[in-house]
């Protein structure tokens, strides 16, 4: 509660409390002032009324003694009249201002001050006798002790009894014979008025405090507290906490604001969740793409590596062919001169054989590296596989190999040179036969697959051979990599296959389990399929 008054310009509640408080104080003060004035007026009018009665009583009391011109009696009556508490003085003076009688004997014979209220109450000019249009017969003043006193002046009219009295003091045409004037103390009334004023002030102060407190509490309950809750809630939301809705149950404007705020938090939370999911998806997508790019890059590097290796190999191979021609020719020439069956002849046979092996290696290398464009045409995948299978099946190497064909019903077609795909099949079959030690099953399966929304024809060559060691898999397509005995393989078959597949715009991958066999997956772009 204190906090709202520390910086009132920052608090609605403080402003409301101060504004209403000020209003209450102002109105309470006006009420207090008006009430006090009214009381005073009422009391004064009562006092004047009683004062009038008293003056009339004094007139009546002295009437007889006046008629009988008994001055002593009149004087005594006045003295007696002034004895009760509150009556300060009673005096009678004539219209010229001469004090005839007074309860205060010292005054008798004096003249009334011409400027005093005693004369000026009715006369604007007492010397000429001009009458005031609004004569005032009483006045209030402070006496020497500081108490309020009431002075009442009343005319003594020339009654018939007066003008016709035996003394004949007053002629009949004289209207006013004199005046009775009394001074009454209002000290008691002052005291009562003061006490009442005090009580009223106390009531008003208590009222102001009570109303202000009540307003303050109501304000705190209805405005400050909910606004603080809302503000705390907003701070939490700004800090990222979306799990704590604002607890305000009222149905007023702040309640509506709170429920709107809560539904906003809910929406924000949903949006944040959605954002998090999007971020997650995006991250996954980025990771996937990164992996893809990495793979493609690795593939590109591999392809480029193979290509430059191929160019180098071709250059070397071509140069080697020339000296090899010399070796072969001269070995043959020497062999012709040797006696058949001699040691020299046998040694030369070894030279010739090894030179021819060199020639074979070089031929393979050149096949692998040749960059000449192949004939463009259509490859009917299933046909080529069947043709190649028929071709090799009768060879000695494949006598103990069983072929299983699981070919797609549709005639799958790709762009390229049929002999190139035939070479792929041939390499696959030869490798499979070697891997199975010339005994086992070769399964060829063709089907259509989708890769990045593009159709491909995939040919899977599966053997039941010894499988490939995991550490050998990455080197599988490198030229000169072989697991076969030195005189059996050149290590070019798979790199030639790889080169052809790449040339045809496809891809090749391998899956192998040691002791169970190996599968090669050759994917080539599908141009069309004919059913």
């Amino acid at each position, binding site marked *: 509660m204190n906090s709202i008054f520390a910086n009132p310009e920052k608090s609605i509640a403080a402003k409301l409390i101060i504004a209403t408080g000020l209003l209450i104080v102002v109105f309470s003060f006006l009420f207090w002032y008006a009430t006090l004035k009214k009381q005073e007026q009422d009391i004064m009018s009562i006092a004047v009324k009683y004062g009038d009665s008293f003056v009339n009583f004094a007139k009546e009391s002295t009437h007889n003694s006046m008629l009988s011109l008994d001055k002593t009696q009149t004087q005594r009556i006045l003295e007696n009249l002034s004895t009760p508490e509150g009556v300060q003085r009673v005096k009678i003076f004539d219209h010229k201002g001469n004090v005839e009688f007074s309860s205060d004997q010292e005054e008798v014979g004096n003249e009334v001050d011409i400027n005093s209220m005693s004369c000026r109450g009715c006369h604007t000019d007492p010397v000429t006798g001009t009458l005031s249009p609004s004569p005032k017969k009483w006045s209030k003043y402070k006496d020497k002790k500081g108490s309020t006193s009431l002075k009442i002046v009343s005319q003594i009219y020339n009654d018939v009894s007066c003008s016709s009295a035996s003394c004949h003091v007053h002629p009949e045409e004289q209207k006013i014979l004199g005046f009775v004037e009394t001074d009454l103390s209002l000290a008691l009334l002052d005291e009562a008025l003061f006490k009442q004023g005090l009580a009223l002030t106390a009531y008003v102060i208590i009222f102001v405090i009570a109303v202000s407190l009540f307003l303050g509490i109501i304000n705190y309950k209805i405005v400050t507290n909910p606004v603080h809750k809302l503000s705390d809630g907003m701070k939490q939301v700004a800090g990222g906490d979306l799990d704590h809705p604002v607890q305000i149950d009222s149905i007023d404007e702040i309640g509506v604001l709170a429920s709107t705020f809560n539904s906003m938090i809910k929406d924000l939370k949903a949006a944040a969740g959605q954002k998090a999911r999007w971020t997650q998806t995006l991250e996954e997508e980025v990771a996937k793409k990164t992996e893809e790019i990495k793979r493609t890059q690795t593939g590109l590097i591999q392809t480029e590596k193979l290509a430059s290796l191929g160019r180098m190999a071709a250059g070397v191979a*071509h140069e080697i062919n020339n000296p090899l021609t010399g070796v072969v020719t001269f070995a043959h*020439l020497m062999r012709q001169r040797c006696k058949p069956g001699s040691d020299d002849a046998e040694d030369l046979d070894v030279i010739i054989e090894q030179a021819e092996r060199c020639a074979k290696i070089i031929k393979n290398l050149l096949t692998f590296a040749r960059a000449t464009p192949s004939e463009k045409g259509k490859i009917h995948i299933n046909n080529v596989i069947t043709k190649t299978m028929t071709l090799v099946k009768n060879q000695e190497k494949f006598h103990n190999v069983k072929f299983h064909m699981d070919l797609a019903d549709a005639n799958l077609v790709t762009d390229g040179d049929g002999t190139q795909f035939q070479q792929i099949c041939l390499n696959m079959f030869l490798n499979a036969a070697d891997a199975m030690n010339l005994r086992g099953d070769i399964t060829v399966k063709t089907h259509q697959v989708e890769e990045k929304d593009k159709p491909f024809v995939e040919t899977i060559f599966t053997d039941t051979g010894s499988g490939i060691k995991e550490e050998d898999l990455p080197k599988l397509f490198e030229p000169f990599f072989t697991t076969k005995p030195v005189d059996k393989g050149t290590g070019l078959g798979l790199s030639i296959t790889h080169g052809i597949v790449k040339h045809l715009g496809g891809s090749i991958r391998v899956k192998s389990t040691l002791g169970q066999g190996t599968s090669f997956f050759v994917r080539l772009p599908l141009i069309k399929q004919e059913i």
Partner: protein
Amino acid sequence: MKKVLVIDDEPIVRLSSKRTLAPEGYDVTLADSGREGIEILERETFDVILLDLKMPDMSGIDVLKVIMEKWPGTKVIIVTGYSTVDTAVESLRLGAYNHIEKPFTPNSLLAAVKEVFDKKD
């Protein structure tokens, strides 16, 4: 005398050819470049020309074109390490008689040369 001209920038190939063919009764002339081969051809006539395809200054294909233009009907056997179908097809299209691969054995060379004369006869 059956006259054979060998055009090859590689000395060992020229020597191998000479040593294979000479004992069989062929008169072998050697040229170490296409330019020299053409100069020799300006002076003499040969029954068979063994022509290498890959040579530094003038390629075998260019030499073949000149020979076919100037002396049509000359029997040219292309000897090449590039045993690709394409080069073989091109040289045959340009008028080469036959084509053998390096490294050749004495027998394959003799057989190819002999075939020319067998057909002639």
